């Protein structure tokens, strides 16, 4: 930089960081996919949860199940490794490489790049240690414990500083579309990650999220869905916009399509989160927004696909010869397929069948393997020869990778579609006579065993292909020398980064957008009639905006062009676009859906021991296979609801105090929300729910004994490890801080109560003469004493409490709740009942 003259300057790009990120992406990619294959086989063979170690060590290790290897702990490792380690590092490699070139400037700080690179790898290593150890927050893709959360946030901020600093130092006045997507990624991921990880620690390794129940569910899927959007999609779209035209040597198809699909994508994506919670006890208005915005998201997503595929016009001949183009073309096609499937699955009627089944798993893997995996491979094959100044070691091997990978994905996705649809249909199938269900849950699981095996094979093929990629890149690197590009760039004379805030906001496009959205939101929230007026105004505004655009197209265009010359105002507008959806959905729920407004079912508080049991449930990752949510659907209520209770779907009050919520997203096992029950006769604390203590005891020891054909891991270690009684006072203090209405208890009372309840359950089991493996001689008093300390007792206590509630009755006719559109609707119906003199509530 010091050699700068008035006109040009010489720049050496920092490509070392790119090489490092790329190498780590490949290494973690292999690890993450390998863990994925292991997880897949665990669903076919329960022995893969630890028993297999007995065979490969020829009996040196004896175990029915090893805690570190159970599915519940490994599956989070797989998802985190693939998302944050594989795609994360790949994204950083692409962003660092392309941003420097699009800014014609070296990354602002080598030190920050180093901290970012090594800090991220440290985070991954700590995740790989803590997750199998059972240290988790119990929320999907947000499992990492709070000290690691802070590290992730810090490293992300360092990445952001480094990135925006580079933008500030750029020698290219205008921002290319790839950079728009990077900006959206950095800003949005920071917002999502921080909000969804807000929690209060109870120890160095454990914390409770500040949101509970449905609010936690809402925040979690606002995050979870948009992690897919802004971690797995937008950065990769940016990478596509840079590397695809480079590789194809063709101009991007349509600039205006870039503009339209970028802004619509980042604005709409955020709203679609609730589509993960369709037909649950989430308020209907949120479900409506989730579904309808998902449908509106289809076109913006396909805008990206079109701009990718149509850029290949005139370069399709390269598809035969260039593996890079092959991977990109297939990757973008999978993107198109997955973003068509997404809105489809978001339709409530389709979701009835697909949700909680393997269809969802197939959907995410067509995105993860097809879009992310293939875009990564394309980028690696394009980058490697340039980063090591050589040529690709073997094009034939890259082609082989492509075909093996493609067959792998197709096998994977097709088997998951079949499994999902088949299981979904079987679960809803009624028996002869139509009054009962035809299949037991376990029968539906056994029906998809072949698909499970095919899936493991498909995944294995993809992994093999990816290892070939690793070998190819390794050999390529060995055949060349690390090389950093040096270029002469012109120092721009034009002025940029000078746009005043007034100019950013005081103009037609911004005013129309904001006013339109404002009235749209008023339409959701205003009381009857006010809402329709707001809609009319919103529509009129839209018409006026279209007119204004037609007459002033150039002015609107100039404003956007100018925005592209000013990265801070641009970033600010992106932030506003992505912040609106979350704010409109989450804030009203935080205000409205609270204990004081609950009518009907309200959750019973956990006793200290039950809380300890719940933490074990979370720690073992039970939520990966079990839901706690009976949807408002016949197959769900018939299967999981109690006899004679007409409204036995899950009500939102039933999990209001659950930090974190455990509604689940996949049923490899049955729903558990009706497992709990009343106090046992004569007991002080002990409850007996749907099944008794002995059943649970036997089931945790060997699920196949109580449920023939089950693929659940055996949990022998829960019969050895001791319950953590000591941490309970602190945990209850934090729960109280979070708003859970615990009565005041001192630490002795908490401890005594927990131990008394544990002893009650242990006595009950000892009376039934259960046998603990390895402790076969224990009987009576000794057995009860041994058991009372063990984790299995706490977990049984939790199972017997799960889903219990008390009834809260409220007098008088229903009152409308501001910010809750559903109450306006209920008013008309419940109010009607009151006018007619029927004073009982129509709606539970």
């Amino acid at each position, binding site marked *: 930089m010091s050699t700068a003259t008035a006109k040009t300057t010489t720049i050496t790009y920092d490509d070392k960081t790119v090489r490092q990120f790329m190498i780590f992406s490949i290494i973690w990619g292999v690890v993450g996919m390998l863990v994925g294959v292991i997880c897949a086989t665990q669903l076919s063979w329960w022995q893969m949860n630890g028993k297999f170690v007995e065979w490969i060590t020829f009996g040196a290790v004896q175990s029915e199940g090893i805690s570190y290897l159970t599915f519940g702990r490994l599956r989070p490792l797989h998802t985190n490794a693939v998302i944050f380690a594989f795609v994360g590092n790949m994204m950083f490699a692409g962003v660092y490489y392309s941003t420097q070139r699009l800014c014609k400037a070296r990354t602002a700080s080598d030190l920050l790049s180093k901290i970012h690179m090594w800090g991220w790898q440290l985070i991954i290593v700590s995740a790989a240690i803590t997750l199998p150890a059972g240290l988790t927050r119990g929320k999907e893709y947000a499992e990492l414990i709070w000290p690691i959360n802070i590290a992730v946030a810090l490293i992300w901020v360092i990445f952001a500083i480094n990135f925006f600093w580079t933008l500030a130092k750029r020698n*290219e006045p*205008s921002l*290319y579309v790839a950079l728009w997507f990077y900006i959206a990624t950095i800003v949005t991921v920071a917002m999502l990650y921080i909000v969804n990880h807000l929690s209060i620690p109870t120890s160095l390794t454990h914390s409770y999220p500040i949101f509970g129940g449905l609010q936690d569910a809402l925040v979690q899927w606002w995050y979870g869905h948009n992690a897919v959007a802004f971690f797995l999609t937008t950065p990769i779209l940016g990478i596509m916009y840079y590397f695809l*035209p*480079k590789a194809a040597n063709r*101009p*991007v*198809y*349509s*600039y205006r399509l*870039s503009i339209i699909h970028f802004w619509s994508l980042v604005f709409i994506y955020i709203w679609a989160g609730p589509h993960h919670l369709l*037909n649950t006890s989430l308020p*209907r*208005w949120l479900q409506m927004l989730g579904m*309808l915005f998902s*449908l*509106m998201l289809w*076109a913006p997503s*396909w*805008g990206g696909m*079109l701009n990718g595929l149509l850029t290949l*016009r*005139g370069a*399709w001949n390269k598809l035969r010869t260039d593996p890079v183009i092959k991977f990109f073309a297939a990757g973008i096609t999978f993107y198109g397929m997955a973003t068509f499937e997404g809105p489809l699955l978001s339709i409530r009627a389709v979701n009835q069948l697909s949700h909680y089944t393997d269809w969802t798993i197939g959907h995410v893997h067509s995105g993860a393997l097809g879009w992310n995996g293939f875009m990564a491979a394309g980028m690696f094959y394009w980058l490697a020869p340039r980063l090591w100044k050589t040529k690709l070691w073997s094009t034939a091997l890259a082609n082989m990778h492509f075909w093996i990978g493609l067959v792998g994905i197709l096998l994977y996705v097709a088997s998951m579609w079949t499994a999902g649809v088949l299981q979904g249909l079987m679960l809803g199938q009624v*028996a002869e*006579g*139509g*009054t*009962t269900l035809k299949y037991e849950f376990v029968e539906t699981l056994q029906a998809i065993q072949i698909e499970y095996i095919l899936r493991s094979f498909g995944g294995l093929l993809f992994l093999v292909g990816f290892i070939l990629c690793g070998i190819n890149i390794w050999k390529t690197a060995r055949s060349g020398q690390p090389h950093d590009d040096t270029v002469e760039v012109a120092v721009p004379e034009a002025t940029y980064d000078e746009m005043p805030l007034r100019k950013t906001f005081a103009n037609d496009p911004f005013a129309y957008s904001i006013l339109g959205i404002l009235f749209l939101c008023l*339409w959701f929230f205003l009381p009857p009639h006010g*809402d*329709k007026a707001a*809609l009319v105004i919103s529509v009129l505004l839209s018409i006026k905006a279209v007119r204004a655009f037609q007459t002033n197209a150039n002015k609107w265009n100039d404003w956007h062009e100018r925005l592209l010359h000013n990265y801070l105002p641009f970033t600010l507008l992106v932030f506003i676009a992505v912040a609106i959806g979350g704010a409109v959905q989450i804030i009203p729920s935080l205000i409205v859906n609270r204990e004081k407004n609950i009518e009907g079912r309200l959750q019973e508080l956990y006793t200290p021991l039950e809380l300890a049991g719940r933490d074990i449930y979370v720690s073992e990752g039970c939520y990966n296979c079990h839901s706690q949510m009976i949807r*408002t*659907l*016949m197959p769900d209520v*018939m299967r999981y609801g*109690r*006899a*004679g209770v007409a*409204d036995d*779907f899950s009500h939102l009050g039933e999990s209001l105090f659950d930090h974190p919520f455990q509604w689940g997203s996949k049923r490899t096992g049955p729903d558990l929300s009706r497992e709990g029950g009343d106090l046992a006769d004569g*007991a002080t604390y002990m409850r*007996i729910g749907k*099944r*008794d203590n*002995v*059943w649970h005891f036997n089931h945790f020891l060997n699920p196949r*004994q109580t449920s*023939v054909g089950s693929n659940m891991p055996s949990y022998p270690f829960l019969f050895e490890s001791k319950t953590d009684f000591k941490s309970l006072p602190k945990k209850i203090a934090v729960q109280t801080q979070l708003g859970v209405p615990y009565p005041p208890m001192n630490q002795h009372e908490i401890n005594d109560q927990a131990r008394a309840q544990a002893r009650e359950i242990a006595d*009950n089991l000892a*009376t*039934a003469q*259960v046998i603990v493996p390895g402790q076969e001689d224990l009987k009576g008093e000794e057995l009860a004493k041994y058991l009372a300390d063990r984790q299995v007792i706490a977990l049984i206590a939790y199972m017997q409490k799960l889903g219990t509630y008390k009834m809260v009755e409220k007098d008088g006719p229903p009152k409308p709740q501001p910010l809750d*559109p*559903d109450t306006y*609707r*209920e008013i*008309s*119906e419940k109010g009607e009942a009151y006018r007619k003199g029927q004073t009982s509530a129509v709606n539970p």
Partner: protein
Amino acid sequence: MSDENSEQEVKRGDFARKKGEVVLREHEYDGIQEFDQKLPNWWLFTFYFAIVWFVVYWALYYHTGTYKTDQQKIIEQVTQLQEQKAAALATALESITDEALINEWATDPVVVSAGEAIYTTNCVACHSADLSGVMLVGDQKIPLPGLPLDDGEWKYGSKPLDLFKLINEGTPPDEPGHNGAKMTPWGQMLSPKQIAEVTAFLIAKNPDDFPAQQ
């Protein structure tokens, strides 16, 4: 998709715009050029349609009340199912009597084997496959949660219809259960016919307790 030959020659900037040709934008980014093609109409149409559907569907639900709430719908369905179930049970009980269960159901090998299949799927976890209520692990006998069904004792009534009722409705709510364990009401999962089949299977397994009746 056109190949390179048929691709029309592209012009840059305003010149092309005025001529109505495909515009290749003036500016290049690190050698990357951009066309400025018009948005495909079918694409725009899907986008507009989704937006219109958003407004229409919301209005249908919240303004016209065309659709029922999820809660209304499911309660109606469940209530209807319960009525259907009660009717089915009443009809079934017309033909299922103590005599019929012993003389007809329990003597029909097809019925008994159907009952055994249901027993194997649903009952063995608590009552064991050999009806003893005890599980053998090595040489140790571990009691299971359920009562033994082969000891000649029928705690909640020894008539075939008592068994039927017990299976259908589960342990009576005011009973303490067996060591706290209460049987689930299987009527939730099994039809009256299936419950009768299981009952027939138990009768066939305990011929001494249920002597043939005239």
